[in-house]
């Protein structure tokens, strides 16, 4: 096994990705009138604190029961909830703002698939001009204190302020999750 043998390199999405990637609106993972619908929104900032209007975010998440609509999630008795595929995509607007409508995912198994569990979270990819490869982060939820404390991925980040950048703040009807690409308040990003 040779690590990294032969993969195709990543290149930036550039500034004109809307053309190929945002022809459909994928920002609503569930219908607006879904009984558990929440709004997750925020703003993308660069290292100078300026908003990033040419960014795009993608979400990947489990359903409210913690099940992924994917063959790798073949746990018995756990059919994914009908409706959402768990995938979302939204381009930032001129103010660097994005907004998704979804449901809060359930807890999912932790590393190794054994007894450990992860707090409810959403995997996020960030694409933009100036990003030669995607950035990966996670949305956790501020009203899941207990689960967040026990979460193995959050626990792997020692600096509490850095860890806190992954936790979306609850507000009426949803959560706020800002993304700081660089600088003092930089969001924690993952090597996936």
């Amino acid at each position, binding site marked *: 096994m040779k690590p990294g*043998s032969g993969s195709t390199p990543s290149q930036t999405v550039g500034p004109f990705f809307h053309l190929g990637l945002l022809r459909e609106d994928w920002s609503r993972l569930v219908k607006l009138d879904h009984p558990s619908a929440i709004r997750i929104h925020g703003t993308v900032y660069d290292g*100078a604190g300026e908003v990033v209007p040419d960014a795009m975010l993608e979400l*990947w998440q489990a359903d409210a029961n913690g099940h992924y609509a994917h063959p790798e999630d073949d746990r018995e008795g756990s059919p994914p909830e009908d409706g959402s595929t768990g995938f979302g995509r939204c381009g930032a607007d001129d103010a660097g703002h994005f907004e998704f409508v979804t449901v809060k995912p359930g807890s999912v198994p932790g590393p190794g698939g054994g007894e450990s569990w992860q707090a409810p979270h959403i995997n996020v990819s960030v694409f933009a001009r100036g990003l030669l490869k995607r950035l990966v982060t996670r949305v956790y939820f501020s009203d899941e204190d207990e689960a967040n404390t026990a979460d193995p991925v959050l626990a792997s980040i020692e600096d509490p302020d850095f860890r806190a950048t992954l936790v979306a703040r609850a507000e009426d009807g949803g959560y706020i999750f800002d993304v700081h690409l660089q600088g003092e308040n930089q969001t924690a990003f993952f090597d996936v």
Partner: protein
Amino acid sequence: MREERISLSQSGGYRRDSESQPPYLYPEYESTRLRAPGRPLVILPHTLSELTGPVYGHEKVGTLDHDLTRQHVGEPLGERIIVTGRVLDGDGRPVRNSLIEAWQANAAGRYAHHGDRHPAPLDPNFTGAGRCLTDSEGRYRFVTVKPGAYPWGNHDNAWRPAHIHFSLFGPAFATRLVTQMYFPGDPLFEHDPIFQSVSDPKARQRLVSRFDLSATEPEWALGYSFDIVLRGCNATPVENHG
């Protein structure tokens, strides 16, 4: 297909391939300076959240979505080309039934995008966006026109080599890839910081398509081959090495 699936949760997930990838900060590419993260990345173990990923339905891809020359009343101007190849994982296995999205400038080097200020003509018969699913052998095929090079403001007299943007999902969140395909022998390669941001010359070469006479359709269109390799799996569990 299902029986060939490896139980990834029991393995070490997908291999990291940082040697093939560009850095976040590449100062010659101006826009990376304020957008590249400064703090080290946090290593994310591959849990079910990374080993799963969006599955795109066949029903959503139209039969002509792969043909960028047939989206309008008339035909676009430019050199008609076929771009075809296979999507493979790092172990040489085909990535099947997987969505590819593509977008590009027109033959004059202009994107049909309100943000593109390059004073080259728009083509009313060309939008420059397509998509398709790979087949059971990982094969895909687009019909389009060869995009033009275009200037950009990165540095004095900066020009992007002609390229087509590709977006791929592969089987999992961990395999997501957005890249660009270039054309062989482009004299702009050595002047382009986005292309040069990949430091390994062999990896860089994997971004360049190959002129392929066998993909050419006589009297109609030239052909280029472009294989895309996504990450491979760790075949064995990562524990028990101590």
